[in-house]
């Protein structure tokens, strides 16, 4: 509290700085400021170098400023143009200037490690930066601006919005955290990119090698993404920026996301598969209510059970063939995704203080009706020079997000048969059958006697009967002071405090199926008593809506002290030194509330359990009756049931203590040596506190070869050679030397005692994961800056990686999570940039990056490599000597000659063919097909921008090459207690069966009673003919921006106005001929082309 008060006082104090500005004047200097087009620039900044004095030009680009006597230097700046200085002689009274376009690539690029900003030229490490041009484009998530921009930064996965999950320089850990660290304004942040207002971002630097990132020690092994936010440039009286855009995308492509068979194929397959291939029979007895079937299967089964005549069945099946629900799904459940974003920023500064305030509001409509969200982010940032030796900074972020998730999901849609209409011809909701076997409910259950007599389910109605809302309240505060006791030395203390809260409230209204069916199924009813059909059930739950609520809170703070020393000694020796300590703490609490039954949102009334919540006293089974003395309650099919009524809580604490240092020495601005070290300690469970720490370090060197006198290659402008080596880490605190336990939250319902379980049996090898990275690179610029970029080669060797390692079962487990694995990543990265002035009006800028990565697990102790594990992907398929992302598949060998029914086979050990009735024994590595790696070894990114007068056309193309994926094939559905929904490949299979192609492709069972057909699902996805090249080229983005004529703008007081049209996810070129996008498997949501229009202006 005291602390908060201090902050407020400081805050007010800083604002007061806005009012103080004064200077001595002795002479008036006037002049005009013109732009590159020789047009006057209004509102350009004119300031006096070395003082806090500044003015702005008027609408005609003219200014007047009072200057002290003597020679003075004026600094002219204007957004988007190159800042220029002009020396004003002692007697001059006019000073005119023409400001040129800023030429970013030729400007000195700086990189930020989060702790310090260094000129790229002097950096020894491998950094990637995102250009201002890219950052200026519209986005809802800043991470999407990184895609395709930096070599070695691969978007491993992207969600359907195109938001990426990055992997930097390959996989660096097998089981621990795989995400890059995100640092905003010097602090790692809680929450993700969503808490960053994209319009606020000034720079993004990506730290790729040890020298770049080792300052982040144990958290840096996956690379670091450093974001800095905008602040007012010195001498800005007030600048207002406003931007707004609307993005609209196409509706979900159901053919891709729900690749079902056509209605007639569906019916054909239903007939073909009915009661065959080991199908379990639905006998129509009451306990099989959950054995739901498609309407087609239902008709077949009803006829079999004798409830429907064959002619009626055939009539129904024929009529189903003619129906198709995709239009109804599209009309009633799907929506065009739309995003509207508005952003307002205010910047103001004096010589001693700068303020930046931004506010963003965004509205998103998802792909599904009734699912949408609103986001608000407010940012304020302040920098103040309180005294010559004392700086103060403060920034805050306040965010409110509201997510409404009432809509259908893709899996809701995927449960429907293609002919299952949602709306009947009269316009009413049709009940669909994917919840239970409808005729059975109608025939054998007195539905009218249950609390709710309506048992129907309709997804459209469901989306309108519920209210599922997630709320996020997030706040972040960063503040610090910088003390500069002497030139070159500064001491900084800073703190970041974050408080993130999430509330979830899911309410199923009284009309929702979920509420109705939960209450009905909880009622006690005994189907086996003689007069069951006329016996009313005894309700065990109150009639009404059902409410579930939970919340979570994360409170994190980070306290840091730093000493910096930067000094140039005798003009040739430049030293940069940084040392500091940091304490971090993060507490995450979760709270789950018990389900509220019988809830009425209008009156806030709720029900109680009329017969108690159940629970099972240990006194044996009962004979189908409900004795008064027995607390055990039973449900609508006479099964024992209980209702949860307890809260749940979680509380975890992450703590770190770190000490770190970094020193760089440059001689003669040619030779730089750098070194850094960091020790991290975390709150591991251990007897020996020393083991909590682990040191990480790096060394690096760079040589500015081009500055040497002997360097005389004309076409080379710049050439720097760099080499670094060092270690990063990763940590997982779930293990300890000793066994660890978890505690059950509530007493066991049978024993009424608390229980505990072993969460870890112990990890005697416990230590931090370590990855040693060596990097050699050159930075170059040739042909007078026309081509520039870098080439890097790296090797990253991870050791002591945590993995599930085989141990003898005598120790209590056959595998244990131990620091015992090793992995290597090797790669090459190449970046080529170009700026090319084709004519006076036409300029081309391009950036091409290319990277290659090879991954191999070099140590991992397992006793067996079962084929079923290897084809299981991800962690299950880790094998020594192979890429961690290897795709293993069964080699399909066609049908054998077994009599009377040939069986499909795959290759097994000893070149023997095995049928698919059981798992294949032996070492899978010896007989499975190693199809390739599922993560692209080659990645390409190309962004280009063409300027013609006021028009800018730019695009981003990305490509991933050389990897493989498993395409979707037929799904071999079996009538096994559920609905049969063949996908569209059923045609291929039916045709293949007809044309006797079963040696090439897995066709249907030859035995009508094939009992192991259900087991084929362990194989059919993983047959090697489904392995395909995954390579793709993606047109990520095309943007057309028009910058309005300044002459026109100036009249309305606007400096800069840009209008733009942008297209994202426009198309992708695939190397497989099946049209399946490896990033988005067939049957999942894939991003549809999206178009954005918007404006951006400042005044």
């Amino acid at each position, binding site marked *: 509290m005291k602390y908060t008060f201090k902050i407020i006082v400081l805050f007010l104090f800083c604002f007061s700085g806005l009012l103080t500005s004064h200077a001595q004047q002795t002479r008036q200097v006037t002049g005009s400021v013109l732009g590159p087009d020789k047009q006057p620039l209004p509102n350009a900044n004119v300031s006096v170098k070395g003082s806090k004095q500044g003015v702005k030009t008027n609408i005609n680009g003219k200014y007047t400023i009072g200057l002290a006597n003597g020679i003075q230097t004026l600094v002219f700046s204007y957004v988007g143009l190159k800042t220029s200085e002009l020396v004003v002689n002692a007697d001059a009274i006019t000073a005119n200037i023409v400001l040129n376009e800023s030429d970013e690539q030729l400007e000195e690029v700086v990189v930020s490690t989060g702790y310090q900003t260094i000129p790229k030229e002097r950096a020894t490490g491998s950094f990637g930066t995102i250009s201002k041009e890219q950052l200026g484009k519209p986005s809802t998530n800043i991470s999407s601006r990184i895609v395709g921009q930096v070599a070695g930064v691969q978007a491993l996965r992207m969600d359907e919005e195109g938001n990426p999950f990055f992997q930097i320089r390959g996989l660096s850990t097998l089981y621990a955290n795989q995400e890059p660290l995100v640092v905003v304004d010097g602090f790692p942040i809680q929450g993700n990119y969503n808490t960053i207002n994209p319009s606020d971002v000034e720079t993004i630097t990506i730290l790729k090698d040890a020298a770049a990132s080792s300052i982040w020690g144990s958290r840096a092994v996956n690379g670091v993404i450093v974001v800095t936010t905008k602040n007012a440039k010195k001498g800005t009286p007030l600048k207002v920026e406003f931007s707004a855009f609307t993005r609209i995308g196409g509706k979900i492509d159901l053919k891709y996301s729900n690749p079902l068979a056509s209605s007639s194929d569906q019916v054909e397959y239903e007939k073909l598969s009915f009661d065959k291939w080991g199908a379990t029979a639905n006998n129509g007895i009451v306990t099989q209510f959950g054995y739901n079937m498609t309407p087609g299967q239902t008709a077949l089964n009803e006829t079999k059970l004798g409830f429907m005549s064959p002619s009626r069945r055939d009539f129904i099946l024929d009529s189903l063939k003619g129906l198709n629900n995709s239009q109804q799904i599209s009309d009633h459940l799907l929506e065009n995704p739309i995003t509207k974003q508005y952003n307002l920023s205010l910047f103001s500064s004096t010589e001693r203080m700068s303020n930046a305030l931004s506010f963003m509001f965004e509205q998103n409509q998802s792909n599904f009706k009734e699912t949408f969200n609103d986001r608000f982010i407010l940012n304020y940032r302040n920098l103040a020079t309180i005294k010559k030796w004392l700086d103060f900074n403060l920034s805050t972020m306040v965010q409110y997000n509201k997510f409404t998730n009432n809509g259908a999901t893709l899996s809701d849609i995927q449960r429907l048969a293609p002919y299952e209409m949602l709306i009947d011809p009269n316009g009413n909701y049709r009940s669909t059958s994917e919840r239970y076997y409808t005729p059975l409910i109608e025939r054998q259950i007195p539905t009218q006697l249950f609390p709710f007599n309506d048992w129907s389910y309709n997804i459209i109605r469901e989306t309108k009967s519920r209210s599922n809302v997630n709320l996020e309240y997030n706040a972040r505060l960063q503040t610090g002071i910088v003390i500069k006791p002497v030139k070159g030395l500064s001491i900084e203390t800073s703190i970041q405090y974050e408080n993130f809260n999430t509330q979830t409230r899911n309410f199923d209204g009284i009309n929702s199926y979920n509420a109705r069916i939960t209450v009905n199924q909880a009622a006690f009813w005994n189907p086996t008593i003689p007069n069951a059909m006329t016996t009313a059930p005894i309700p065990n739950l109150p009639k009404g809506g059902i409410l579930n609520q939970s919340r979570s809170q994360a409170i994190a703070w980070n306290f840091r002290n730093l000493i910096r020393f930067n000094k140039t000694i005798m003009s040739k020796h430049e030293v940069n030194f940084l040392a500091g300590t940091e304490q971090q703490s993060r507490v995450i609490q979760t709270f789950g509330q018990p389900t509220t039954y019988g809830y009425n949102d209008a009156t806030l009334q709720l029900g109680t359990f009329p017969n108690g919540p159940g629970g099972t006293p240990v006194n044996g089974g009962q004979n189908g009756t409900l004795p008064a003395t027995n607390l055990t309650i039973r449900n609508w099919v006479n099964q024992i049931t209980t209702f949860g009524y307890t809260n749940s809580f979680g509380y975890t604490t992450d703590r770190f203590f770190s000490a770190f240092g970094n020193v760089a020495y440059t001689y003669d601005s040619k030779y730089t040596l750098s070194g850094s070290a960091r020790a991290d300690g975390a709150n591991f469970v251990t007897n020996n506190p020393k083991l909590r720490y682990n040191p990480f370090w790096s060394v690096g060197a760079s040589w500015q070869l081009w500055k040497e006198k002997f360097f005389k290659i004309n076409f080379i402008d710049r050439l720097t050679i760099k080499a670094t080596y060092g270690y990063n880490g990763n940590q997982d605190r779930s293990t*300890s030397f000793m066994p*660890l336990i978890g505690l059950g939250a509530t007493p066991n319902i049978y024993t009424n005692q608390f229980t505990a379980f072993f969460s870890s049996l112990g990890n005697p090898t416990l230590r931090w994961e370590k990855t040693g990275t060596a990097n050699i690179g050159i930075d170059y610029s040739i042909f007078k800056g026309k081509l520039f970029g870098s080439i890097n080669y790296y090797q990253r060797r991870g050791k002591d990686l945590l993995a599930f390692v085989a141990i003898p*079962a005598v120790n*209590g487990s056959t595998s244990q999570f131990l620091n015992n694995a090793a992995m290597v990543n090797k790669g090459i990265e190449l970046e080529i940039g170009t700026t090319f002035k084709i004519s006076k009006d036409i300029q081309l800028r391009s950036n091409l990056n290319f990277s290659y990565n090879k991954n191999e697990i070099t140590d991992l102790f397992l006793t067996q490599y079962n084929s079923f594990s290897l084809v299981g992907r991800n962690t299950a398929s880790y094998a020594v000597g192979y890429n961690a992302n290897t795709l293993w598949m069964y080699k399909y060998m066609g049908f054998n000659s077994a009599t009377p029914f040939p069986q499909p086979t795959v290759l097994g050990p000893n070149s023997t063919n095995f049928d698919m009735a059981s798992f*294949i024994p032996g070492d899978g590595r010896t007989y499975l097909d190693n199809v390739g790696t599922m993560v692209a070894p080659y990645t390409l990114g190309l962004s280009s921008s063409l300027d013609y007068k006021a028009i800018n056309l730019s695009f981003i193309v990305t490509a991933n090459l050389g990897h493989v994926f498993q395409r979707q094939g037929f799904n071999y559905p079996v009538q096994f207690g559920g609905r049969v929904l063949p996908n569209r490949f059923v045609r291929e299979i039916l045709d293949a069966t007809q044309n006797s192609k079963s040696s090439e492709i897995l066709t249907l069972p030859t035995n009508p009673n094939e009992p192991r057909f259900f087991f084929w699902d362990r194989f059919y996805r993983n047959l090697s003919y489904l392995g395909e090249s995954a390579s793709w080229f993606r047109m990520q983005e095309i943007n057309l921006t028009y910058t309005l004529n300044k002459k026109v703008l100036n009249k309305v007081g606007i400096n800069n106005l840009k209008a733009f049209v942008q297209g994202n996810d426009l198309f992708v070129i695939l190397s497989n001929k099946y049209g399946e996008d490896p990033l988005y498997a067939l049957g999942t949501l894939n991003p549809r082309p999206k178009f954005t229009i918007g404006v951006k202006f400042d005044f």
Partner: protein
Amino acid sequence: MKNFIDKLTICTLLFLVTSFSACEKFLDEPISKNSSIPLETIEHLNALMEQYGSLYSDENPSWMGTDDYGLNAQTYDNKRGNFTFLPNIFRAFWDIEYNKLTANSDALWASGSGEWRDVFYANAVLENLNKVTGGTEADRARLKAEAHLLRAYAYWQLANTYCLPYTNTNKSEMGLPIKKSTSFEEDLTRVSLEETYKFIESDLAEALKINKPLLVGGKPEHWRGSTAAVNGFAARYYLNRNNYTEALKYANLALGEYSRLVDYNNPTEMYYGTPFTYSVTGGSPFTCQFPFTHNNQTNLVDFFGWKEFLYFRVQNFGSWFYLPSKELLDLYDKSNDRRYEFHIVENYSYYFGSNTPTNGLPGYIFFFKDRIPSGPTTAEMYLIKAECMARNGDINGALTAVNVLRAKRIRPGALVNLTAANQSEAITKILQERRREIPFVQRWFDLRRYNNNSDPNDDVIVTKQFYPITISGPDVTKPIQTYQLEKNSRKYALPIHNNELISGRGKLLQNIY
């Protein structure tokens, strides 16, 4: 300048003080309040022993090697798809070679709920008992005895499955590695059988010090160690060692504390549960009747409520098909033995889609489809008591004891009471009763002791008719062959899974065949 020095000093001091103060304490904060926590209090140890979910399941595969299991060429051909579990078939036919290739590891030796995990639980309690806070001396003594029972029980199961029977000639054969702590560094060498049994006996001696009744507030706490549980296990142990006097002593002690039997003749104690109707190819639908204990798969109420448990242990079989052999079925009086009525479910194979009338096979059903009581029960105590008395020559006492049990199992009438003209007949009849009462779970252990006791009359040579087995399963194209498990076959020690030998890195040795 002085001003500057002052400022610098203040800043440096501030810096140092705020940075380094109490950082050890800072990192001592536990990472969670309820997960990943070390064993610190006696409540933690107690809560571990309450974790019956990890401890109650015995997935002992050895029963498939007995003559209770009805898998033969004919039942296999009936519906091969029902018996695809290769390792099960190998074990049923004592096939050692292909054990190495089996995809699944051995559940008793090497699964998360296997016996070595139980040993780990016991060792975690034992090594932390004197380190944790809280609790009285009595609490500690009780936990200690309970942990020793847990470890003894696990070792006994392992020794009787993976090692040869403990006889004078086998004393120096390979036993088991001795695990006394939770460390992964302990020696994996298999000590001799003699040393292994000494270890079990020392654990049993510690366990016998337990001072906790089975009934607490009238409710049996059978999932925890108790005097009745330890005595019940001791009775089983000594019977297995052919020490009838000791076995009888402990059976009597156990029954003295708790002797409740479920009366199969009482319709409120034993009755049919929810029936299931299966369609029959070429016939009218057939309704299978199951015992009420079949009703719940996940709900433990019927297991927990089974009134005969002294120590809650259940044999688990994931393939859900305890197929009784014809020999076993023939032992039952089909019209009067209620155990046949309730536990032998006729045409159970219909459940697996084997639904033609000629293919109907019965199944032995106890709890749901997969579990049978395997821990010491009151029923087992009566059988031990009867057998020990008979073997010690007390024929009348023996028959009285066994008839107490039969009264609860056989329809009332003249057939209830067993009679015997001499000792040998009494023993034979009691052993038959034993087989009817506890098929599958005790048979393997019984075969081992019958073949190694002084009585030659109870010896059994198990033979089976089946196809030759190849790497890809039974080779049905080859003629059926006869497998025979000789009296003193080394195959009575099941092979240790190949994976274990690999992860044992040369220290853990395979049985010699």
